[in-house]
């Protein structure tokens, strides 16, 4: 069985990624994007794990690539790691378009961007791609657009478009690209590919959130053992111990949820969709509670600009809503479960 080998290589990738982030991350610099760490990740081969060896990549699988994302989340990394590693290469591979060099971002723009076939080949785009992660720093943006016959995957150069700068709650760049009459390379896609893109995008946010949540737990454990009040570490109080236990539960939940969703997508399991949807909806609850308990444990210092905690909790608050809000996913989940011709609840949950 190949699983143990995959586990070993995944762990190895995680270790390398952790070393890169730990060495390179400039925690002091807050705004903008982390070009130095990005370059280090590229050098270590961590941004093209799923790209076949023939295409200059690592020839690895989704589980291995996902480990880089999880580690990135645990360092509150300032880069479009999900878009560049799990989304753009996947979509381009489906269209048979070679991976362009440089920094990549990606987005599902089907609701706001139409693609029509250009007379002399290629595609002509109309509309605005909204809230594309780190678009202003990307060399290429891969988009899912709506064609006359179904979804289309295209590549655009953001510097050749009109870009409006926006930011997420966490201060991550999230820009609009005006694509009126913009020409682009690309290819037609199947609806299944678009569905998988959506799952991968959700998976990406789950992994980022899971990594960040583990860091929040780590910070909280340190806080309750170091902060002293009433003559002792606050961790000696039972009420604090219980909050920490609850926090550990929610952090474990979001990590196991992300892990299960990842494996299910990797294996194309029958329950893949419901596992991703369930994990994504539940992550909203877990990440919300994680941030709330962590702040409660850190007291006043935790809500300031100077403490590291906020770099992570801001991301939890932003990431829980990205790649589809809990409300959207919950409604889709209810749809599946309430479909009168669909399998009963338990059969859907167990994928049989």
């Amino acid at each position, binding site marked *: 069985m190949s699983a143990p080998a995959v586990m070993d290589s995944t762990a190895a990738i995680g270790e390398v990624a952790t070393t890169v982030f730990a060495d390179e991350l400039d925690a002091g610099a807050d705004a903008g994007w982390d070009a130095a760490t990005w370059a280090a990740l590229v050098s270590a081969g961590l941004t093209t794990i799923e790209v076949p060896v023939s295409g200059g990549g690592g020839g690895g699988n989704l589980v291995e690539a996902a480990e880089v994302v999880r580690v990135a989340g645990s360092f509150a990394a300032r880069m479009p790691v999900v878009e560049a590693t799990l989304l753009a290469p996947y979509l381009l591979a489906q269209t048979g378009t070679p991976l362009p060099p440089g920094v990549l971002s990606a987005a599902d723009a089907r609701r706001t961007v139409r693609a029509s076939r250009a007379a002399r080949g290629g595609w002509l785009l109309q509309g605005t791609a909204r809230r594309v992660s780190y678009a202003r720093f990307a060399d290429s943006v891969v988009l899912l657009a709506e064609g006359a016959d179904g979804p289309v995957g295209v590549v655009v150069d953001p510097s050749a478009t009109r870009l409006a700068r926006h930011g997420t709650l966490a201060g991550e760049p999230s820009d609009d690209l005006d694509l009126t009459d913009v020409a682009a390379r690309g290819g037609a896609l199947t609806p299944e590919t678009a569905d998988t893109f959506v799952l991968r995008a959700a998976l990406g946010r789950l992994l980022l959130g899971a990594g960040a949540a583990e860091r929040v737990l780590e910070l909280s454990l340190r806080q309750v053992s170091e902060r002293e009040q009433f003559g002792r570490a606050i961790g000696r109080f039972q009420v604090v111990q219980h909050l920490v236990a609850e926090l550990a*539960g929610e952090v474990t939940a979001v990590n196991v949820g992300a892990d299960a969703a990842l494996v299910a997508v990797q294996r194309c399991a029958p329950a893949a969709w419901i596992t991703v949807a369930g994990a994504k909806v539940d992550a909203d609850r877990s990440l919300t509670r994680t941030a709330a308990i962590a702040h409660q444990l850190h007291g006043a210092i935790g809500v300031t600009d100077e403490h590291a905690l906020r770099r992570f909790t801001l991301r939890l608050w932003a990431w829980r809503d990205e790649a589809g809000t809990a409300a959207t996913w919950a409604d889709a989940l*209810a749809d599946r479960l309430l479909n*009168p011709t669909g399998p009963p609840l338990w059969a859907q949950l167990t994928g049989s």
Partner: protein
Amino acid sequence: MRLRAVSLPLEATALRAQVRAFLAEEVASGAFVPSPDSWLSGVDPVMSRKLGQRGWLGMSYPAEYGGRSASHLERFVVTEELLAAGAPVAAHWVAERQMAPSILRWGTVEQKRRYVLGVARGEQFWAIGMSEPDSGSDLASVRTRASRVPGGWRVSGTKMWTSGAHVAHHLMALVRTSPREHGPRHSGLSQLIVDLSADGVAVRPILSLDGTHHFNEVVLDDVFVPHEDVLGTIGEGWRQCTSELALERSGPERILSTLPLLTAWVEAVRVGSMSGDEHARQVLGGLAARLVVLRQMSLAVAGALAAGRDVEVEAALVKDMGTRFEGEVADAVRRLVPVGDDRDETALGSMLATAVMHAPGFTLRGGTNEVLRGVVARGLGVR
């Protein structure tokens, strides 16, 4: 402490299908009515024997004692199907889950021969003799005493909250065999196998607040226990008991007790007028989502057990979250479908009433959640 999601082995799919098909036939033929919390309240010796005959009890036991050395993951699949169906498995539940495994771990060959096969057959039932009137969460404070006499021990004391003792054949009793003078407060404890039909044993029912019977008081008045029925080592009762507790806490019955209710509600919404109701849909999405994740956590614990890892902290954590979820299901459904006067006329109404009235027990049994949070905190180095 890092729980990893686990994938079920391929063999599990066929096993699941067999169990599910059998249970569907049983429901269709009227052999049982699905019920929430049935693993605690649904005593049905006929069902227990049927499951034993099909080889679905004691699967992880060695072949010579009625099993086939199956993994924890295969047992997990059978367990969750039984719980999802709300099947009446209470008679054999604790015997199969923890007593026989305990005997396999600590017992003599003679004890294994005498006791384990009967459990795997679904014919021998056991009750847990731990709690007492004055010893609940503080288990080490048990007062039931065993005194050495020729050929064995004389046991006197009272065990309380003993689920299923009225149908059980044996009681695994945690007793004090030597005074607690030196050393930690849990030293001097032992585990004795008490024959519930022996002289001096009196079982008195304790009705639950909904009028149903699963709890009992077991009074032991100078009951003779032969030396052959001492489990493991005299004085090692606490250590043996603790490993038994890990088994007790780690299963999916800590998250799925109200799944039959959730299933029934979803079916009702499908055919009723509420399927377009935005609020109801959001509630359903939220519950289903937490169920997806909790099930994966429970499965991950089973996987860790299968890999031989110690799961004390992880099991405590999952039990805390899982049992709170069980109550949330009852509460969420209740807000949308009130427990009405017609509750004895519809399956959903009846299940809902049962779930509401059993809910306080979810977070108390198997270790109260507050105590388990202390276990988690200790595991994290905070306590």
